[in-house]
C-alpha cells in the first residue's frame, strides 16, 4: 500500500498530528462514547469545507452534506451503495459506472460489491504520448448512456499521476453537463499533490460552481498521514437543503448496516486541527513539506535522466503529480529493474515517488537508463 516516506525512507507522523494526539491524550474530559451515525459533526463540517472551499456557494446555500467514513474507500462505498439504491430510479443496478483506464484497482470492486452490474472504462492514459487521452475521454463521455456515473480523480490521478488541466476540466464538465452524467470525485491527495489545498481542489470546486450535483469521496490518509485511523468523508453537493437532507437520511441507513458509526480517534485529530487557525496553518505547512519533497524527487530524477541522455522524453516525470508516476517503462524494462536492480515498481511502469530519496536518486536514474538502453 502506498504511503509517504521521508528522505530517510521512513514513515512520517506529521508534527501537527503528534501535537494534537498529545492534546487529546491529556484531555481527561474526553471519552470513548459512540459518535453519531454520520460521524463527528466538527469533523464533517470542516472536512467538507476543505474540499469545497471557505467561500463555496454550495456551503453558503446550505446544500451540502457530509458522511464521516472509514477512509476514502469507505466514503466511496457509502456513495456507491447510495447511488445503486437511489440514483437513476430505484435500485437500478444497470446504471453504467465508468472508471478511468487505468485507475486504482479497488474502484472496480467497490462498485461491483455495491451491486452495479455494468462497469465500464473510459479512455484516460495515452501510453504512446505518455499523457492524457483527452479526445478518447471526451468521446467516451459523448457515447456514454445518459445518467452514467463517472469516477473522476480530483487530483494526482492514481496510478498515472496525470491530471487534466483546468481548460481540459472545463471541457469535461461541459460534456458531462450536456449528457447528464454524474460526477463522483475521488479526492485522496488534496494538498499532497501540489502542496496547495485550493489548487488540488480546483476541479471539484469548478464542477460545484457549474451547478452540478456531485459526490466527493475524501481521504485524509495521505494528507494527514493518518493511514491506519481510517479517516474519510463523503461530501454530498445537492440542489438544495431539502434534497441533501433526504439523501443523508438514507445514507444513515446504509452506514448503520455497514459499520453503525465511525471510529472517533482520527476524526478528532482532523477536526481539532482544522478548526484551530494555528494548527491549521501548521498542518498546511506539514502537507507542503511532503508535497515539496515529492516534487523535488521528480525534478531531480528528471534532470538526472536528461543528463544521462537516457533515450526518450522525461518531462512527464515533472508534469505528472502526486505519489505515483507512470514512467513509461515497458514490462521487459520493468522486469530488468526488479530482477537486476532490485527496484520495485508495478508491471505498468508505475513508480511510487515517495520511495525516492537523495541517497538512491543516482542509482534509480542509472538503473532506468540501463533498462532503456539495454
Amino acid at each position, binding site marked *: 500500500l502506498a504511503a509517504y516516506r521521508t528522505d530517510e525512507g521512513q514513515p512520517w507522523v506529521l508534527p501537527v498530528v503528534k501535537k494534537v494526539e498529545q492534546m487529546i491524550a491529556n484531555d481527561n474530559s474526553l471519552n470513548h462514547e459512540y459518535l453519531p451515525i454520520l460521524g463527528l459533526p466538527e469533523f464533517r463540517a470542516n472536512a467538507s469545507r476543505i474540499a469545497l472551499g471557505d467561500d463555496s456557494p454550495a456551503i453558503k446555500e446550505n446544500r451540502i452534506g457530509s458522511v464521516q467514513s*472509514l477512509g476514502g474507500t*469507505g466514503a466511496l462505498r457509502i456513495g456507491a451503495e447510495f447511488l445503486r439504491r437511489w440514483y437513476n430510479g430505484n435500485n437500478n443496478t444497470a446504471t453504467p459506472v465508468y472508471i478511468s483506464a487505468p485507475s486504482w484497482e*479497488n474502484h472496480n470492486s467497490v462498485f461491483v460489491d455495491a451491486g452495479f452490474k455494468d462497469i465500464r472504462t473510459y479512455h484516460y492514459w495515452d501510453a504512446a504520448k505518455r499523457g492524457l487521452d483527452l479526445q478518447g475521454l471526451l468521446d467516451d463521455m459523448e457515447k456514454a448512456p445518459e445518467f452514467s456515473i463517472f469516477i473522476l480523480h480530483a487530483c494526482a490521478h492514481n496510478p498515472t499521476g496525470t491530471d487534466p488541466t483546468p481548460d481540459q476540466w472545463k471541457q469535461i464538465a461541459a460534456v458531462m453537463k450536456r449528457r447528464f452524467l454524474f460526477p463522483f470525485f475521488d479526492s485522496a491527495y488534496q494538498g499532497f499533490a501540489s502542496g496547495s489545498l485550493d489548487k488540488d481542489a480546483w476541479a471539484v470546486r469548478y464542477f460545484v460552481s457549474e451547478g452540478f*450535483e456531485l459526490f466527493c469521496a475524501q481521504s485524509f490518509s495521505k494528507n494527514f498521514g493518518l493511514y491506519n485511523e481510517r479517516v474519510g468523508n463523503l461530501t454530498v453537493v445537492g*440542489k438544495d437543503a431539502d434534497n441533501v437532507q433526504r*439523501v443523508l437520511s*438514507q445514507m444513515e441507513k446504509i452506514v448503520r448496516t*455497514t459499520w453503525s*458509526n465511525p*471510529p472517533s480517534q482520527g476524526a478528532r485529530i482532523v477536526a481539532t486541527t482544522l478548526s484551530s487557525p494555528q494548527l491549521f496553518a501548521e498542518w498546511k505547512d506539514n502537507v507542503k513539506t511532503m508535497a515539496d519533497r515529492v516534487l523535488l524527487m521528480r525534478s531531480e530524477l528528471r534532470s538526472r535522466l536528461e543528463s544521462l541522455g537516457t533515450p526518450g522524453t522525461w518531462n512527464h516525470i515533472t508534469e505528472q503529480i502526486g505519489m505515483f508516476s507512470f514512467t513509461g517503462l515497458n514490462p521487459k524494462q520493468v522486469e530488468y529493474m526488479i530482477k537486476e536492480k532490485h527496484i520495485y515498481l508495478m508491471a505498468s511502469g508505475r513508480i511510487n515517488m515517495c520511495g525516492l530519496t537523495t541517497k538512491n536518486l543516482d542509482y534509480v536514474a542509472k538503473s532506468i537508463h540501463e533498462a532503456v538502453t539495454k
Partner: protein
Amino acid sequence: SSWWSHVEMGPPDPILGVTEAFKRDTNSKKMNLGVGAYRDDNGKPYVLNCVRKAEAMIASKKMDKEYLPIGGLADFTRASAELALGENSEAFKSGRYVTVQGISGTGSLRIGANFLQRFFKSSRDVYLPKPSWGNHTPIFRDAGMQLQAYRYYDPKTCSLDFSGAMDDISKIPEKSIILLHACAHNPTGVDPRQEQWKELAAMVKKRNLLVYFDMAYQGFASGDINRDAWAVRYFIEQGINVVLSQSYAKNMGLYGERAGAFTVICSDAEEAKRVESQLKILIRPMYSNPPLNGARIASIILNTPDLRKEWLVEVKGMADRIISMRTQLVSNLKKEGSSHNWQHITDQIGMFCFTGLKPEQVERLIKEFSIYMTKDGRISVAGVTSGNVGYLAHAIHQVTK
C-alpha cells in the same frame, strides 16, 4: 431539478432516536434508558482504568500510522480468538480458525453476513430469535440474505419460551443459518441456562444448521468472561463449527473506537487460510483495512497480564453494578406497593431488561416522567443509578398500577 427528488426521508433510527429526543428534553429528572452504553453510578460514561493505562503506553511509544493489514492487527485478532474460545480450546490451539478485525459488532456481523451470502450456498435464510437486536435484520438484508424467526421470548412470563424455541428450531430446514446471542440477549436479557444450551446444541446439530453467534457482551453479562463464553465454547466442543462476531464496545467501553472481530471455525488450518483470503476480498472494497486505535488498546489489555487482570476486575465491576441496579429496582417497586411480579428484572442478565411494559405505558413514561426507552419496553439498566432508581420505580408503578 435534482437527482434526488424521489429520495424518501429515511425513518429515524429507533434506538439512537431515543437519545436524540432525550437530549431535547429539559426536565431535570430525565433518564435515558435507550442506548446501550454503560454509565457509572453518577450516570456518567466510564473510561476503564486499564484503557487509560493502555492509552498511556501507546502515547509513550510514538508508533507510526502505517496501514494495518486488511484482516487487522494480528495481536488483536489472535487475542480476540483466544478470549472467545478459551486458551485450552482445541480449535484455537490447532489453528483451525480465522479471526479478522471488524468494525465493532456491527462491522463484524456485516462481514460475516456478506461472507455467508457469497459462500454459503445451501440457504439464504437466517433465523433470528424473536425478538432480536433491531439492527440484525437490516444488516443481513443489506447483505442479501432473507430473515426468518424462531420463538424465543415469552411475553407472558418475561422469560425464555424454551419449548417454543426448540419446537421452531426442530422445523428449520436443514443447512439454514441460525443466529444465537451468546450471552445477555439483546433486547430481552433472557439467556438459556446451561442445560438448555446443551439441548439447543443437540438440536442444531441434528438439523445440520450453520450457527452464527453474536457475542457483544462477554464479561459484561455475568462478570465472568469464561462463563459468558460458555455456550460458544460448548457448541464448538460438540463439533459445531460456528461463526462468531465479537464486540469490545461494552466490555472494554471502547464504543466509538469500533473494536470488534469476526471468526470462522474451520475444519483445519488450511481451510482457515482459504477462508481468510476470501474475507479479505470482502473487506477491501468496504473500507480497505480497519482502524487501529481501538484494536490496539484492546490488544494491549488482553496481552499484558497486569492489564488483563485489571480489566477482568473492572468488567466484573460494571456487571456487578448492573446486577445491583436490577435488585434495587425490584425492591423499590415492592416498596412502591406494586403488586406485579417483577422477578424477571433480576432473572434477566446484561445491559438490557425487557420490562414487559406496553407501548402505551412506555409513551406515558416518556411524556409524563421524561424517562426514555424504546417502544418495546426495553430499558438499558446501565442508565439506572442509585440516585434515580427510586424515581424509575415510582414512575413504572404509576403507569402499571
